[in-house]
């Protein structure tokens, strides 16, 4: 019977009109991100980092640029760690490559910026700001 499908379609839309809505009011209401969510920027823990450079090597797109320095105890330290999120493929290779779990995603997906330069993140500075020098020293002591 022609027209039956039309009526059933009208029924569906009317039901949905009075039914429950599936979207959320985004900025006020945020959906939880799953545990494995890959997104945002790299969150570096410079105290864990052994400056091996495996993350930069694993990266398919040369997103991570790091420089190192060897100190008097023949231990390597990071001198800079730049993460260019504008080029990132979010493939997780760097995190998988890290032997000490020094990097992880900060899971903040709201990373739109007004200028391209702002997409470059100096992870080392952020990490140092987070862990004050006192804590750094105590961590060193523990390590020694």
């Amino acid at each position: 019977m022609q027209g039956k499908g039309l009526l059933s379609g009208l029924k569906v839309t009317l039901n949905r009109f009075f039914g429950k809505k599936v979207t959320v009011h985004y900025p006020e209401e945020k959906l939880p991100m799953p545990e494995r969510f890959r997104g945002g920027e790299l969150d570096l823990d410079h105290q864990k980092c052994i400056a091996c450079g495996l993350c930069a090597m694993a990266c398919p797109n040369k997103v991570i640029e790091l420089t190192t320095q060897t100190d008097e105890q023949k231990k390597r330290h990071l001198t800079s760690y730049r993460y260019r999120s504008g080029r990132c493929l979010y493939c997780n290779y760097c995190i998988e490559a890290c032997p000490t779990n020094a990097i992880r995603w900060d899971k903040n997906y709201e990373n739109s910026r007004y200028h391209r330069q702002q997409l470059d993140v100096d992870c080392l500075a952020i990490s140092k700001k987070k862990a004050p020098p006192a804590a750094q020293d105590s961590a060193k002591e523990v390590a020694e």
Partner: protein
Amino acid sequence: MPKTQTYTLNMGPQHPSTHGVLQVVMELDGERVVQAIPQMGYLHRGIEKLAESRTYAQFIPYTDRLDYVSSMGNNLGYCQTIEKLLELDIPERAEYLRVIMAELNRIASHLIFMSSVAIDLGATTGMMFGFRDRERILDLFDMACGARLTYSYIRIGGVREDVPPEFMAATRQFLADFPEMLAEYHELLTGNEILYHRLRGSGVISGPRALEIGLTGASLRASGVDYDIRKAEPYGIYDRFDFCVPLGQTGDNWDRYRVRMEEMKESAGIVTQALDALPDGPVMAKVPKVLKPPPGDVYHRIENPRGELGFYVVSDGSVKPYRLHVRRPSFINLQALNEICQGLLIADVVAVLATLDPLMGEVDC
């Protein structure tokens, strides 16, 4: 006889219904199509060239960006190609997880197909329904690998990591809800007479001609050619599953639509079987940190939602592929566009584009 003149109409690359940046140069006689020549390349990123400067493992994220609504299939195809070259055996659990992911992705991709058919024919609400349910699948992927579109989940030698325990229950819940969703699509779209009359009988291509011109996947099966690589040349563990291949009869828009709608059901069936048979164990084979396949070349193809996806890899024994070529189904399927569209109306070109389902990320590579 009044003298008439044809005119050229550029559809795209900025047009609401060319699925990205496809340009179709149409020669029209009134509203009748004399010729519809696809012009592509607006999204060309040179992925094949990029592959030559990436290691074998590093190329996986790039395969995500080929057919970006069925990345799992791309990952699978690429990884199996390299595994074939390495002659690597995959743990059972990983094989099953791969099938689950690939088939869920097929459903998600076909939901996009349905949505784009709906919106190209003016049924905006129908589109929303498809996207709503696709979200459910994306949530599952998000749970398993932390990404919603570019998964990079399937890796050379297995899968990235085992799925979290709640994944099983959530997948089963989705599968339980799926028939209800299909019923809703039927009430709103498939059973709709306007949609039926829009698609039925237009954009016909015969089976033999479809094969000649290189159509693969659901578009070929809609013309009645029984060719599904999962059946014809089973890769992975597809020979262990019981499913049928939906076929069309006439090869018109309606058949292309119906075949994909039926395929979703079959895929859901495969996922159920795979979930039931999922063994315990490791999900990653022993793979050396640095992959150096022996020199040689290999071609492997899988059945992706859009057709036959093939990877041709030439190795020179180094860590990077010497040459990598992707046989992209969307690209080759587009060859049929001109032939199918001749003599149709503008509105039908849109419908044909929707049912051929090309994806520009894949076409332009």
